[in-house]
Each structure stands twice: as structure tokens, then as C-alpha cells.
């Protein structure tokens, strides 16, 4: 029942008609309008700017790492770029982009046609902008994890700006979580009939609300310790504070933080896949159960991020390891659901041609690649061998964050593009973008994994010529630049097509076999 209803909402109803929304938007509307599509588009385009900024930072330090020894970047500048790359990509691109796409999709899929608590969403956006500005001015170089006591001892006079930015990110994400929860429960028809995107936004919204509290506290503690506001510190061991306290507080947010973009990206799959295939998902309840399990599993397993420290030891270490391995299960439920859905009926030719669908399929490939290999990461023994803080970890999170979440964000963007510009994207340029990203990402992630297996440490701007290290870094840089090239095709495409693209038909995503509408499964019926 549920999924047929969802399909109808996703179909050719009047409110799904493409229109030139971006062309008609006034500056005032863009900045301050509380209309859900305006807020969503503002979030989406800001996130794309953040992606460009974070990407340029990455390309700069990739050039430095291309060969061993120091070329043109000093340690301080390198670490600032690295820190900002991480913060801008996660807090500026991934989380706001998928959340904004959910702001756009939720009112449409639920049929409410409005974003409840839009003022909170507006405030959340502007607070994040202030945080981004503070980060750029303050130029922190303490990595996105801001480990105490290092993060207030780096000798940068504007360091407090980085700590204030952490507090602002927490407030911004808290508001976004509240908006997601409010809207997830706004559909009619009861929770048994609510689409999977609402389940996703409800569960991840709750995760936002709970998990950002320790992040806000961490930001406050770092600020207070760094500026020495009190005689006794929270985290500074030289003034009676505890580093371990910092670690537990930070990673109580830090692990759920990786699900904050991950779950909305999953929600985009559950919304787009039936739309392109023209038939419902393989299982509704399997998806619901997986969302709930993922939410419950996220909080207690944070300590696996600092497991080689003595504070995580003995039975507690085993408890963390076991729950970490178990959190694998909800992701397996999701991936099983997607592959089973693809297997059920013939895949329409229209879907095979559609760029969002292609990005979605390869995003699933990357979640398998990065997720299944991460089965090793959860285990204490291999983690204490070649996994902890070597390049194996960036390989894992670039596969998950970029290969999966980032590509789903782009899939959502291509999907929505005709609806908010009234034009179709250019297929050839979109294909170039698509293939450059798949090839670049695969090279980059695989080379990172190899470097990690050879114990290449994270966060170094200069490295020795150990066997395999130079080759691995070379290939990571090549992959990174291919991704950058793909991004240029993307930007040119979205700018060019918004003026000169083919006008989008009333239903930009018809379900067709050989140019004929699919007989029984057409959403128009």
C-alpha cells in the first residue's frame, strides 16, 4: 500500500511540474524567503560553493603531496588547508546539501507543500554561514577532530574563532534536526503509511538533536580552556582537565556525525529509486527497521575512533567492538533492499539513461566498496595493525562520504534540476562529469587504501620514500584531479543548461521502455 501511495506522490501531480524557479527568484527571496523551495535551493547552492572551496583546498595540498619532500606548502598552511577541507566538506557541503534536498523533497513527497518551522531552518542556515566565515578568518590547523589539549596550543591567536565555529555548527545542526523531525511527522495517513524518507528524516533528526549537545559542550570547553577563562580546565591536563573526557564527549557526537549526512543520502535513494524504476521498493519494513537500528546503534560506539588508547580496553573495548560490528547489519539491510529492488523487474531504458540513476547505482557500488571493507576497521586486532589513523581510514570515509553521500547529493541535485530550472541538463556534459567522478574516485580511494595498508600516516605534508608510498600518493593525486575536472563539467553544465538547456517536459522522468511508457507501472495511472 504504502509504496504505491508514495509513487503516486512522486509522480506527475501538479505540484511536481518543472518551472523556472531559480530564474524568477529575487535576491530578497533567495536570502530571506521561508518558502521551502527557496530555503532548500539556497542551502543546495551554498553547499555546492562549499564543495568547490573544499575541493580547491584538496587540490592544493594534493599538488604538494604529489611527490615526497616539501614543495611549496609549509606544515602550518598544509594543516590549515587540511582542517578546512574536512570541516568545509562535512559541515559545509555534505550535511547541508543532503538536509536541503530533504527540505525540498519532504513537503513534496508528503504532500504538505510547506516546510514547518521554516524560520528555524532559515536561522540554521545563517548560523552555519557565520561559522564558515569564522573558520576562514580564524584558519584553525587542529584537524576537524580538534583533539585537546593540542587544539588550544597551536599558537594561533585567532584560534578561539575555530572553537566558536564548533559551537555554532552545533546550534545550526540542532535547529536542522528539529526541522527534520517536525516535518517528518507532518504527513497524513499515519506512521505506517509514511514514506521512507520521512522515517529517515525522523530518525536522523532525533540523532541530530541528541548528538549535537556534546559537540556544543566540546566547543564551549575548548573555548574556555583555550582562553583560560577558569582556573580549572575541562580538557587541559596541565590545569586539572581530562583528555579522556574530551575524547568521550567529542566522539559521542563524532560517530553519529557520520550518520547525519549518511541517513538523508539513504533517504534520497529510497525516494529516487521507485521513481526511476516505476515500481515500489522491495521491502518497506526492512527499510524502516534499518533506519531505527542505525539510529540506536550510532551513539554508543563512538569510542572505536580512539580505540588504540589505553582508556578503551578490556571488556569495554570488546563491547565497543561488538556493537561497532553489529552496526554493519542495518547498512546490510539497506543495501540488500536496494539490490533486491533492482532485481525485481526489468530496469526501464529511461532509468539507464538518467544521470541521477547512474549516480545512484555507482553510489551503491561505493557503499559496498567502502562499507564492506570497513568490516575490518571495527576489529581491535587489525585496527591495532594497519588501520588506525593510516590512510586506510581516509579511504574508508572518502568511499562513504564522497563515493556514497556526495554522489547521492549530486544525484538528488540532477534529479531536482529540471524542477527548479525548467530545463534539462546537457546529457553529454553530465556523462563526462559522471565518468570522471567514478574513475577518479575509484583510483583515489583504492590508492588511499593501498597507502594505508603500507602504514602511510594521516595528516602529514611531507613523507619518506618508503616502498609504495610515492606511487600511492601519485595515484591519489591523479584521482583527485580527475574529480576536480569532473566538477568543472558539472558547474559548466548547470550554468549553461539553466539558460540554453532543452525545456523540461511536464514529467522530466518518465518511465519508458524503448521510448514507450511502461504499461502497468506508469506513475500517471
Amino acid at each position, binding site marked *: 500500500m504504502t509504496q504505491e501511495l508514495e509513487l503516486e506522490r512522486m509522480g506527475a501531480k501538479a505540484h511536481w511540474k518543472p518551472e523556472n524557479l531559480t530564474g524568477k527568484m529575487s535576491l530578497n527571496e533567495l536570502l530571506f524567503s521561508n518558502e521551502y523551495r527557496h530555503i532548500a535551493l539556497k542551502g543546495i547552492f551554498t553547499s555546492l560553493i562549499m564543495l568547490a572551496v573544499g575541493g580547491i583546498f584538496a587540490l592544493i595540498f594534493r599538488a604538494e603531496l604529489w611527490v615526497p619532500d616539501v614543495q611549496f606548502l609549509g606544515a602550518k598552511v598544509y594543516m590549515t588547508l587540511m582542517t578546512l577541507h574536512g570541516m568545509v566538506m562535512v559541515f559545509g557541503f555534505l550535511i547541508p546539501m543532503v538536509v536541503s534536498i530533504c527540505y525540498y523533497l519532504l513537503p513534496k513527497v508528503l504532500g504538505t507543500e510547506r516546510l514547518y518551522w521554516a524560520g528555524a531552518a532559515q536561522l540554521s542556515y545563517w548560523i552555519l554561514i557565520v561559522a564558515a566565515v569564522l573558520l576562514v578568518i580564524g584558519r584553525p590547523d587542529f584537524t576537524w577532530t580538534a583533539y585537546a589539549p593540542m587544539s588550544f596550543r597551536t599558537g594561533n591567536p585567532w584560534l578561539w574563532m575555530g572553537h566558536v565555529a564548533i559551537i555554532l555548527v552545533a546550534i545550526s545542526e540542532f535547529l536542522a534536526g528539529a526541522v527534520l523531525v517536525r516535518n517528518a511527522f507532518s504527513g497524513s495517513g499515519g506512521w505506517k503509511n509514511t514514506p521512507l524518507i520521512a522515517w529517515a528524516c525522523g530518525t536522523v533528526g532525533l540523532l541530530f538533536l541528541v548528538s549535537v549537545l556534546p559537540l556544543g559542550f566540546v566547543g564551549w570547553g575548548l573555548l574556555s580552556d583555550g582562553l583560560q577563562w577558569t582556573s580549572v580546565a575541562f580538557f587541559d591536563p596541565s590545569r586539572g582537565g581530562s583528555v579522556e573526557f574530551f575524547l568521550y564527549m567529542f566522539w559521542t557526537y563524532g560517530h553519529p556525525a557520520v550518520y547525519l549526512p549518511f541517513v538523508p543520502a539513504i533517504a534520497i535513494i529510497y525516494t529516487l529509486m521507485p521513481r526511476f524504476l516505476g515500481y515500489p521498493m522491495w521491502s518497506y519494513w526492512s527499510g524502516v527497521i534499518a533506519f531505527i537500528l542505525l539510529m540506536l546503534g550510532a551513539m554508543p560506539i563512538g569510542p572505536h575512533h580512539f580505540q588504540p588508547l589505553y582508556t578503551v580496553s578490556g571488556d569495554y573495548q570488546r563491547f565497543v567492538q561488538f556493537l561497532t560490528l553489529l552496526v554493519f547489519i542495518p547498512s546490510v539491510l539497506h543495501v540488500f533492499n536496494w539490490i533486491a529492488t533492482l*532485481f525485481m523487474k526489468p530496469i526501464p531504458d529511461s532509468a539507464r539513461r538518467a544521470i541521477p540513476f547512474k549516480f545512484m547505482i555507482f553510489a551503491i557500488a561505493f557503499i559496498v566498496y567502502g562499507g564492506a571493507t570497513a568490516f575490518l576497521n571495527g576489529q581491535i586486532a587489525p585496527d*591495532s595493525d594497519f588501520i588506525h*589513523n593510516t590512510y586506510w581510514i581516509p579511504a574508508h570515509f572518502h568511499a562513504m562520504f564522497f563515493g556514497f553521500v556526495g554522489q547521492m547529493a549530486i544525484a538528488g541535485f540532477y534529479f531536482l534540476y529540471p524542477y527548479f530550472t525548467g530545463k534539462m541538463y546537457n546529457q553529454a556534459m553530465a556523462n563526462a562529469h559522471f565518468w570522471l567522478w567514478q574513475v577518479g574516485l575509484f583510483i583515489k580511494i583504492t590508492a588511499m587504501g593501498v597507502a594505508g595498508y603500507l602504514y602511510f600516516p594521516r595528516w602529514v605534508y611531507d613523507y619518506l620514500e618508503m616502498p609504495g608510498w610515492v606511487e600511492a600518493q601519485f595515484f591519489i593525486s591523479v584521482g583527485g584531479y580527475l574529480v576536480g575536472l569532473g566538477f568543472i563539467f558539472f558547474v559548466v553544465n548547470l550554468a549553461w543548461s539553466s539558460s540554453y538547456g532543452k525545456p523540461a517536459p511536464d514529467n522530466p522522468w518518465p518511465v519508458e521502455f524503448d521510448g514507450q511508457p511502461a504499461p502497468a507501472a506508469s506513475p500517471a495511472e
Partner: protein
Amino acid sequence: MENALGIWGPQATLMAITASFTVLGMVMLLAAMLMGRRWKPSYAFELGFIAIMIGLVFYADWSSVKTYAAYQENLNIEEKKVSGIAVGEGEAAFDRIVTVIAFQWGFAFISKNEEMSRNAVVVRPGEKVLFKIVSNDVIHGFNIPVAQITAEIDPDTKREMWIRAPDKPGKYLIQCINYCGVGHSQMKAWLVVSADLPTAEHLNSGESN
């Protein structure tokens, strides 16, 4: 080469398992996209698949804990003595005991007779070496690739780890594995394996060679 964690056997098994279900996922995705045959799996099939995955979770947990517990058998013997659970040889199981101070940015190695060296520690081939690691400023890492072992040390605690030195004399990398400030990239040391070094017994009995 034998490494301290004794990990290679169990790790190879788990890497093979991991690789095989990564490939399985890719193959199923490809088949769903390219194969002509269509198939609607049942819930029973999904439950069976999940049951296998949960079985793998139990196996991985058991295998990892077993390996790691064996590695820790002779570590932290002082705490074990306090609790009255000290069994085995304790520090007598090791040929050489070195205290390591990790600092911003480098490692200092202090031998049993208070000889200190910075950024290099000399051991004999095949020796079992116990490192007692402390940090006096920020969180540091301690990773010896050739011995396949990593630990992290925060300023509040002492951390013990041990390695079996390589049989082949030479110079092996020791590196910090956790970002510890702007000098992190330079925080390296060398494990120098040399057959010329006197054994710890020689030193204790006052001999030299």
C-alpha cells in the same frame, strides 16, 4: 616474518572474508543491472543472509579478541599484580625494556640503565622488546610498521606495547600516528636492529663487547 600481534593468520582469514562479501555485493549489483533474468527474493532469504552476517560479526569479535588478548598476556604486569591476577612471566618475558617519552615532536628512548637516545632505539635481531610509553603534552601515536602494531598515548596514562624485532639488521621506521600539532610530520624515529649491540644480560652483569 613473525610480528608481535601474531595477527597474520587470523587477519588473512578475515581479509579474505571481507574481500569475498565486497565482491559478492558488487557482483549482485552488476547482475541486477545487466542480467536478463529477474528475481524477487523472499523475506526468508533476507533473514538467512542477515543471519550469516551476524554469524560473521560473532566470528570477527571472537577472532579479534583472541588475538589481542594473547598479545596483552605479559603487558601491564604491575596492575595485574595489584589485582592479584598476574600469571605468566611478566616482564621476564621480554629481552629488553625501553621507556619511551613521546613529546612534541619526537620520541625519547630510555634504556633500563638510564641511557637516553632521541629518535632512535637500538635493539638486537629477533629480540622481544617491551616499550613503556608516556606522553607529557598531547595525544600521540606510536606505530612500528615492520612490527605491525599501533598504540596511542594520551597525557594522562602510561601505555605498554611490545614487538619482536626483525631478524634482519637495518633501520626500521617508527612514527607518530595521531595528529599532535604542526610538527606531526617530523615525529619519526628509527628502530635500529644491530647484531653488534650487547644483550641486556651482558649489560646487567657489567660486561661489554
